[in-house]
Every structure is written in structure tokens, then in C-alpha cells.
């Protein structure tokens, strides 16, 4: 019997959407400005993107880029840190600095009535940082606290251990972007100042203003704040992504009595600029990117090994890691690793089913407008456009490019970019429970280490 409510509704006509229109400008001294009018609510988000990420750390000075970026908010020539932060927060402006491998970004969101004042403060932050000795010392101590916390946290320890074992000992990507203990100790106020002078120059800076502000008004405010910023930076291209090994191996990081193992399984990925980016995004969605992906349905819903499992490429300018990440009950660690390996083999063996492909492509195309609901998300998207050099029609063509991917494309990139013979397996867990079963998988050599073993040379 069919009741009126047992029949699934079909979708109505899709309504049009386009990414908010943005405009690029060049201020007189060389800073790039991108404006986007998004006037739904009286808010403005600003992102100041500086091409000064951790990949630009000088030899022996890991963490310098991140520390320099964080110090921007710790005080300017005119104001000490507490006073500076209070000035922003009295405007209701939430300001944060993030620095990753490829850029340092100062982000703020504020009511549009206060946008001009907040951008005025942002000028001080970017142009007149004081780098007081006491603040340098304090932030170095905070970095040490972060490292200790990371080592005690199985998830972060697994991520850090995976990258350390994946890349060659000398490769910058083998060590945390924000630096290890020894490198942090070496950083001086003088090094920070030199890094700032070298990299925080107009040609390296893009200011993005998104929200309830017209293009003309944003241009006026930006020109007043940053029009006189000049300078160009040296091109310092440095290889950061040499890998350690081309063969399979298992690394167990000891956490005695752990009720779960944090697993990372993968190898080097490809750079963000690779022409296979779109087919790889779709392939990954089918493999482990979605809740309904093969790996999650296998590990979580079929075997109940875990609360969740996913795969992903860490997209960077150079080749970041590709990894399957999950946390599984200790007793099934080897079984879970084995299932992951099967899924990697399976997606290389035969084309994905058409309904798997359409799930991935319709999801990726459909959520696109949902990703850009907020002014801060719009600003962040444009920050990526700048950092990775996407063409201006990137957002407008995104959905069509996703929808153009075929089963054959997915199979081709799975075969080209997934390498079962090169997998690195990292397990943070209890060796007494997991070592023997992992060794019995016969994947390759297995070694056990303690959480703090990494530091040499970092």
C-alpha cells in the first residue's frame, strides 16, 4: 500500500547562484585590494593575506614565520599588546592571526559601522609591529606549551608523526609549521624583525574586504590605511616536500594503555596547482571524503571499528600529505588498517559506480553556495584564490568543473596518485596490543618509538 507520505518528493527547479562579485585593485604603493559587496547584514570581514608562510622559514629557524605573524597582535609602536587588543575589542572586532605553510593571514569581522576604525588598527598591526623582547619570549614559551600539549594528544601526535615519517629528515614539511622545541629556542627578536622586513612588503600583501561596504568606500578606507605601503620581496623558492621512502612501512608511536589507536595511512599527495585537482577532489569524496564514502561506511557502519574515518589531501603549494585518518578500538587496529588498504586497492582496480560518482559530484556542486554564506567565509575563499593563484573565474566555473568529472577520470587519477606500494602507516597506540597484529599484516618493516623522539635537528 502506498500512502501519500511514503513517496519521496523530487526536487523543484534549482534557483540560480553565483559567487559574490569581487573587484581587484592595486593601491598606489603596490598592495593588492579585493573588494566584495555582500550587504545582507551590517558586517564586514577583512583578511590581510601576506605571502609569508612557514615554507619561507630560513634554514634552522623553523617556526619563525608563524611566530612573526602571531607577534603582530602583541603590540605596535603606539600600543602595547593589551592596549591594542582592547582597542579592537572595544569595537567588537574579533581579530585572529593564522599562519600556515603558504601564507600568514590577519582576519577580522566587525560591524560595518566600525569597519574604518578597525582597518585603521589593522594598519598599525601590519605596518608598525613593535616585537617587544618580552612578547617574543612569552610567545616562545606559549609555543613550548603547545608542543607539550600536542605530544599528549593522540590525534595531534598522529598527524605530527605521520608528516615526520613521511618526508625526508631535511625536508621542511617533515617538521611542524610552527616549529619544534629546539628551533623555537633559537628564534630571536632580531630574526623576527629581519623576517618581517624581508617578507612583509607591499607586493606580498593582499587586503580583502567583504561585506556591507561599497567598493568605493572600501577603496577609500584601504587607500588611506595601506596606500603608502611599498616594497617588493625576494623570490625564495625552497624545496620543502622531499619524501623519505618509496616503500611501505609501519611506525607505532607508543601510548601505553590507550583504549584506541589513532591511525594515519597514506603517502605524499600532489600540489594544489596540479592539473588533476578536480578529479582528485571527486575521487577522494568517493573514497573517504563524505560520510557516505567507501571508507567511512566500511569502518564505521559495516564494522563499527570507529566513530568516523575519512581521507583527504592536504592541499599546499608543494605536495602535502594524502592520508586516511581514523581512531579505532585498540583490538581492531590491524583489521582496520587492512580494510583501508583494501579500499585503496579497490578504487584503483575498477571504475566507481555511476551512483557513487553522482553522489560525490552532486554533493560538491550543491554545497558550494552553503560554504559562502558568511562574510568571513567569502573573505577566506578569496584568500585562497590569492595564495594559490586561481583564475578570476575559479568560483564561477567550479560547479561545472566538478560536474564534468567522469568515472574514467576518477579511475585514472586513483591509479596515477594513489600508491598502495608506498603507504606509510602510523599508529599512535598501545604496542602491547597492536604491534604483533600490525606486524602480521606483512606490509613492511615496523618500528616503535616514543612520543618525544622526534626532536633531533628540529
Amino acid at each position, binding site marked *: 500500500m502506498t500512502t501519500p507520505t511514503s513517496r519521496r518528493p523530487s526536487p*523543484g527547479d534549482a534557483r540560480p547562484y553565483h559567487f559574490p562579485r569581487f573587484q581587484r585593485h592595486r593601491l598606489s604603493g603596490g598592495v593588492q585590494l579585493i573588494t566584495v559587496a555582500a550587504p545582507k547584514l551590517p558586517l564586514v570581514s577583512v583578511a590581510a593575506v601576506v605571502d609569508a608562510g612557514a615554507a619561507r622559514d630560513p634554514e634552522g629557524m623553523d617556526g619563525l614565520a608563524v611566530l612573526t605573524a602571531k607577534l603582530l597582535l602583541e603590540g605596535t609602536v603606539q600600543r602595547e599588546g593589551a592596549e591594542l*587588543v582592547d582597542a579592537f575589542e572595544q569595537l567588537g572586532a574579533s581579530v585572529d592571526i593564522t599562519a600556515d605553510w603558504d601564507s600568514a593571514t590577519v582576519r577580522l569581522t566587525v560591524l560595518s559601522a566600525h569597519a574604518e576604525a578597525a582597518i585603521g588598527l589593522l594598519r598599525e598591526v601590519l605596518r608598525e609591529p613593535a616585537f617587544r623582547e618580552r612578547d617574543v619570549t612569552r610567545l616562545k614559551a606559549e609555543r613550548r606549551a603547545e608542543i607539550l600539549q600536542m605530544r599528549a594528544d593522540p590525534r595531534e601526535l598522529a598527524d605530527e608523526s605521520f608528516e615526520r615519517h613521511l618526508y625526508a629528515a631535511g625536508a621542511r614539511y617533515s617538521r611542524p609549521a610552527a616549529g619544534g622545541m629546539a628551533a623555537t629556542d633559537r628564534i630571536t627578536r632580531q630574526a623576527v624583525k629581519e623576517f618581517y622586513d624581508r617578507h612583509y612588503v607591499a607586493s606580498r600583501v593582499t587586503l580583502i574586504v567583504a561585506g556591507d561596504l561599497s567598493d568605493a568606500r572600501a577603496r577609500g578606507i584601504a587607500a588611506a590605511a595601506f596606500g603608502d605601503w611599498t616594497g617588493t620581496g625576494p623570490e625564495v623558492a625552497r624545496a620543502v616536500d622531499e619524501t623519505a621512502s618509496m616503500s611501505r612501512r609501519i611506525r607505532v608511536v607508543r601510548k601505553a594503555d590507550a583504549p584506541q589507536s589513532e591511525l594515519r595511512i597514506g603517502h605524499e599527495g600532489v600540489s594544489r596547482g596540479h592539473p588533476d585537482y578536480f578529479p582528485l577532489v571527486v575521487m577522494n569524496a568517493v573514497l573517504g571524503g563524505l560520510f557516505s564514502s567507501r571508507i567511512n561506511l566500511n569502518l564505521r557502519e559495516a564494522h563499527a571499528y570507529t*566513530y568516523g574515518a575519512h581521507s583527504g589531501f592536504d592541499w599546499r603549494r608543494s605536495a602535502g600529505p594524502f592520508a586516511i585518518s581514523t581512531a579505532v578500538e585498540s583490538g581492531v587496529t590491524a583489521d582496520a588498517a587492512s580494510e583501508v588498504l583494501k579500499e585503496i586497492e579497490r578504487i584503483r582496480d575498477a571504475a566507481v559506480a555511476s551512483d557513487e560518482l553522482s553522489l560525490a559530484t552532486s554533493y560538491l556542486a550543491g554545497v558550494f553556495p552553503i560554504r559562502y554564506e558568511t562574510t568571513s567565509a567569502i573573505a577566506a575563499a578569496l584568500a585562497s584564490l590569492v595564495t594559490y593563484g586561481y583564475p578570476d573565474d575559479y568560483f564561477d566555473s567550479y560547479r561545472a568543473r566538478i560536474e564534468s568529472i567522469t568515472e574514467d577520470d576518477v579511475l585514472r587519477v586513483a591509479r596515477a596518485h594513489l600508491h598502495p606500494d608506498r603507504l606509510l602507516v602510523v599508529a599512535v597506540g598501545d604496542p602491547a596490543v597492536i604491534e604483533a597484529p600490525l606486524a602480521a599484516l606483512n606490509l613492511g618493516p615496523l618500528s616503535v618509538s616514543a612520543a618525544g623522539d622526534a626532536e633531533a635537528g628540529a
Partner: protein
Amino acid sequence: MRIPIETFELANGLRVTLSEDHTAPIVGVNLWYHVGSANERKGRTGFAHLFEHMLFQGSADVAANEHFELIQRAGGTLNGSTWLDRTNYFEVVPSNECELVLWLEANRMGQLLPAMTQQKLDTQRDVVKNERRWSVDNQPYGTWWERLPALCFPPSHPFHHSLIGSMEDLSQASLEDIAQFFRAYYTPDNAVLSITGDFDPPQARGWVERYFSAIPRGTDARNRPPMDVGPVFGRALEERVADDVALPRLFLAFRSPVFGSEAYYAASVCGAVLGQRSGSRLYRRLVREREIAAEATAFTFDLPKGSDLLVTDVTARPGVSADELHDAVTAEIDTVHREGVTAHEVSRAAALIETDFVNALQSAGERADRLSMFATYFGNPHLVNEQLDRYQAVTVDEVNAFIKARLGPDNRASLLYVPRETGTATDTDSQGAAA
């Protein structure tokens, strides 16, 4: 700033809130069921949350995990979450898929039980046990969110026990428990539905009536245990936990006025003064000036019945002992209790709260969740449009009156994590709350 709101109620008691916004072709759908861990029976801790997992295991016309697949195929996002006093389910989808979401939610509200099997329950029980290992047992400080309510509410109180549940109780949950819980709590008269974004109100109302009207009201008795406790603990409560952590961390909690009450807003502003962002009192004093702490924040649980909790959360710098941390935080709170806070600090807090609030209302999902919250807790979704005025009206005198009444030594619960020596088991030393 106000968002448009219209409401209606079906004959079966389902209360519906609509809020249009045609900026982008997106619709948010959000359901709050007025049930959480507080409604659990003895010996069934963690059941409300386990039940939330079962709601993704299919219904009469939907296969296991198909809800996820259909929404993702539609280009949408979705999830659910369980809290002490409510469980919510939410989707954000392209606007032309709104009807599908309403159909899916109605199908599981009306006809969940035919799809329930022992095998699905066994699988989700194991998934939840892994969730517990991941978020609580194998995570530094991960036990805080069951230890703190246990310390702050007496054993007889419905907020005392663990939300994610004990492994033993999870093992006991049966299909009959599922059926009872469903019949008692997953009924239209115990739920609110909010729809936000790019939809046509008459059309959306038509879909709601079509899919939800036939679902009957609940008739089974619901467990609504008494919530009332005194305004203060009456003495200092302390628990010390030796655990696998790198740095000492102190949670210091205060009973505070319930969410939405007249006095709540001053308490919430006080939380922001103490610990919202790096310009806050605790961050400035303990991280920046005294260099005792690596991090310092404060927040409220936002509980609308019984008592709310205001919590400060401070992590030590390397080299600072647990006792030094405890003494330093306590000394700062003593100073605040003795001298109060300034109008300048209150204006900073109010400005940040205002920006955060407007910022959150940009997204359809957040709008829908807040509308559901005010509809569930107070029967009035229009309260969302009064929040900014309520916050802006808070004066420094009101904040200081709150501080005098609630931040004294008779109203502090201290949960202190201490790095343990390797080789010893986790142990605790606790003195819990009385009613």
C-alpha cells in the same frame, strides 16, 4: 537588527517557525526534540545520545544511512547533536530540496520503529563506544565534560550523570528501550521545527501540513525530573584528577542564573569580561601579565532550568604547578569578587557579544537553531530578536551585583587536572555537590 519570523502550530502540537531570507538559494531545516540526557532513567546513561545515532539508521521508507546519502546527494549538509536537555537534527540544503528534507524528518518522526533492528542497535552501540573513547577516554582532559557536571550537580540531579554514558549502561540498552523512548519523546507535541532561508512560506507550510499532520501526539508519560537547586553551592567543591596530560588545567565553575532569565544576561556578560578573547580579564592578567597561564577562557553552559554554570577554563604554562595555577586563578577571582569589574570591561564584552550574534545570524543553519532553541525553551521564537537589546541593556552595576552574589568562596567548584607520573592509574579525589 531583526529577522522576519512567522509561526504556526499543527493540531498534533508541532510548533513551526519560518524565517525567510532570499539572499542565497539555501534553506535551513532544524528540529529540536525536548529530550536530552536529563530525561534518562537510572541504568541507561548515554541513551538519549545513542538514540540520536539510531535516527540515522532509517525509517519506514528510508534505508539505514540513506538519510545521510539523500541529503548529501541533494548537495546539503546535516547532523544531529545531543545535549543535557534537548536533541537537535538539522540540515542545510539548496532551496529546491526543501521538500525532501521535510519528508525525511517527518518519516523518521512518524515511522522510525519499523526500521529498528538488533543489528543496527549493536553497530551504533559500538560506534558510540568508539565515540566515547575518542572524545573522552583517549583525549587529554577529555573527561572534563562529564566530571564537571557531576561535581556541580548532586547525584540525584538529572544533570549529574554522563551525557555520553558509561560503557556498562550502553551495553544494557535494548530495542525495547528504543521503542519506549521513541514513543515518549519523539512526538510532534515534544518537538519544534524551524525553516529558514529561501523558501515560499505558503508552500513550506503546505509541505509541513502534508508530511507531519498525520503523526499522532504522544500519550506516554515522560520523565521530567525536578531540576531546582540552590543559587550557590554553599561551600567550595573540589576535585583533583591525575591524568595523562602535559600541563595542569583548572575548570572553576559557579552556579549562575538560568539561561534566558532577567539575571542571565549580566552573568553572560560577566563570562565575556572574564574570558572572551585575549582582551579579557583572565587572559590579560594570567597569560599576558603574570605569565602563569598558556590559555584562559570562560563560558556559560546556557541551561534554562535548574541552574546555569559559568565556567572559567585556564591551562598552566610549562613549569607552573597545579597548585600555583589554582592559587593564581582563585586570587584573580577573589580580586574580581572584592573589587568588581569596570564599565570599560563591560563595554568591550558587550561589543564582542553583539558582533558574534550578528555574525552567527548570517547562516541559515544558525538562524534555524536559535529559533528552535527559543521556541523549545520559552515557547517564543521571537525572543531571538530581543537578545541584542537585552545584552545592550546590561549595566556594570548589574554585572557587579552578579559577581557579588555568585563569585564568592561559597559558590566555586574546582576541577583541577594534574599531569600524573607515568605508570600510575588515573585517580581522583572528589567532594561533590549537595542540592
